[in-house]
């Protein structure tokens, strides 16, 4: 049984109704339990919990400090290609957008990596659009090989592959996989992914499992916030995380909170998520999943990121560029989305210190992989 089968037992509407039906007493019960479980989590995500966001945040802070300490990991994305065969309506890399396309050579990717290494990064996230002609398995393996001497952890945010191909990447030195469902709402999914392989909701949904089978040490999931009701997305994320944790128990599950940002194409999010909603969702997920890694990117403003340092975040990106080659030269191509936090990695590290946390550049070692 895959996660697709599991969520077949739930319906979007029923979960929505459950969330709406929760009372303040339900929320208090969830907060007073040391293991609130899925029932408790639904209460924490309900409108009845809106007034108790401070209590949820305090609980989240306590749990995170206990489990992870007062530390924030730092990583940087490295975009290798913006070539894409999909037509995601919210994304600049949409195949229909008239932007110039660029795939870095292996040498260029290494130069970008050397720049990031120089900045202090030891964890890197390789990102590409979905185009196997531009950035296929052999290309990615060559890029990884070039980057391994520079980084202790290499993750990928590319496109779904089968177990064999992911397995090859894992053996060549990739330890983490990030793959967002974007939205767990099947109808909305269909609307915003009109063409390309990504049209297939089920295939996308089962990809984190493929990553688990392939042996990645970290598996990252996420909803693109703004596509549909964040409360319901949050419940699906929690179900998905729990499913993966129980089956791929050797892998750490991470959750990202990508909120839709302005991009080429001018897509307007149908269900905007406020700062308050984002904090609510993240802290409630922390209470439900004490061990999950929670990632916050430079999509968010310095103001919000500063305040979220003590609320449950475990890793942050810093100094990001979202266009291929953007670190070492002006590539002249469009980024995937607009960055909101433009501070340098060192400024962000200092801000983390100013909040009484330690910025951690290295929390893995390349020698884990042969």
């Amino acid at each position, binding site marked *: 049984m895959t996660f697709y089968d599991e969520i077949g037992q739930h319906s979007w509407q029923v979960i929505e109704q459950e969330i709406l039906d929760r009372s303040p007493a339900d929320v208090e019960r969830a907060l007073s339990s040391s293991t609130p479980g899925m029932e408790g989590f639904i209460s924490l995500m309900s409108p009845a919990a809106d007034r108790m966001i401070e209590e949820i945040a305090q609980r989240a802070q306590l749990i995170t400090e206990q489990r992870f300490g007062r530390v924030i990991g730092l990583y940087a994305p490295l975009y290798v290609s913006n070539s894409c065969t999909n037509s995601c309506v919210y994304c600049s890399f949409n195949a229909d957008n008239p932007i110039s396309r660029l795939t870095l050579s292996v040498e260029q990717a290494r130069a970008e990596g050397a720049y990031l290494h120089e900045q202090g990064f030891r964890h890197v996230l390789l990102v590409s659009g979905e185009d196997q002609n531009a950035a296929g398995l052999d290309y990615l393996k060559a890029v990884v090989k070039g980057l391994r001497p520079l980084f202790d952890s290499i993750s990928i945010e590319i496109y779904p592959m089968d177990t064999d191909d992911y397995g090859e990447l894992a053996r060549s030195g990739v330890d983490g996989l990030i793959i967002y469902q974007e939205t767990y709402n099947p109808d909305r999914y269909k609307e915003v992914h009109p063409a390309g392989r990504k049209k297939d909701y089920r295939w996308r949904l089962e990809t984190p499992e493929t990553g688990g089978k392939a042996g990645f040490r970290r598996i990252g999931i996420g909803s693109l916030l703004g596509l549909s009701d964040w409360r319901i997305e949050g419940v699906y994320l929690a179900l998905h995380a729990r499913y993966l944790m129980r089956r791929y128990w050797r892998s750490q599950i991470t959750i990202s909170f990508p909120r839709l940002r302005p991009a080429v194409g001018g897509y307007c999010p149908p269900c905007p998520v406020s700062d308050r909603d984002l904090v609510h969702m993240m802290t409630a997920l922390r209470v439900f999943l004490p061990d999950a890694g929670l990632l916050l990117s430079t999509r968010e403003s310095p103001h919000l990121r500063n305040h979220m340092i003590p609320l449950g975040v475990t890793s942050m990106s810093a100094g990001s560029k979202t266009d291929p080659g953007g670190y070492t030269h002006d590539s002249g191509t469009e980024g995937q989305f607009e960055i909101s936090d433009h501070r340098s990695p060192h400024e962000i590290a200092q801000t983390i210190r100013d909040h009484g*946390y*330690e910025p951690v550049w290295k929390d893995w*070692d390349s020698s*884990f992989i042969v």
Partner: protein
Amino acid sequence: MDKPLVIGTHSFSSRLMMGTGKFSSPEVMRDALEASEAEIVTVALRRVELDNPGDTILSHVDRDRFVLMPNTSGARDAEEAVRLARLARAAGGGSFLKLEVTPDPNYLLPDPVETIKAAEILIKDGFTVLPYIQADPILAKRLEEIGTATVMPLGSPIGSNRGIRTRDSIEIIIEMANVPVVVDAGLGAPSHAAEAMEMGADAVLVNTAVSVAGNPVAMARAFKKGVEAGREAFLAGLGQPRKKAEASSPLTGFLR
């Protein structure tokens, strides 16, 4: 006067070992280590660059004062643990090794099968191996037979601050052991450390309870005192607890 704690070829007067994770800054860590008066400090290989003299953690651990004990945290099988350990020694990490094989990233519970496999290889390699294990008395004996320098049973899961939830098994391990027993993981308060020492443990290892305390330096000092108090009580010989006050010989007093 207490006898020293002997591990491998080293002798120690402190019975508190310290971890280096989760501190809010390397300076706080350094001050807490100092206040703890520990002599053995463990550091996760995944967190440091052993060959980099400017490494934020290592540059704050005085190697003249502390024996550095790298740990293999993050390793999920024997092969990975052995590889990490060898690289660490090649980079100047010394021969003390805290062997951790923890395939699940959430509770970080030790895998007994892979721990035995790794210990066998590393002992042949000449490491002084201190294995992190479940509180399993037979496993402890098996590791001792292979030649580990200590056994390190957990009180409760790492970082949980729950104290000694494995008391009955740890008592058996202590009773049966010929190597030092170090209670590792889960000790959340100086009273937990004192409890372990009162039970007859040879040492304890503490990290989270100190690093996430409101004042880590003061908490390190408190743990030092807890360990000393527990040790002293153990050596003094604790009275057995009784359910109610009893006359000295209610049944046989008439014989006098």
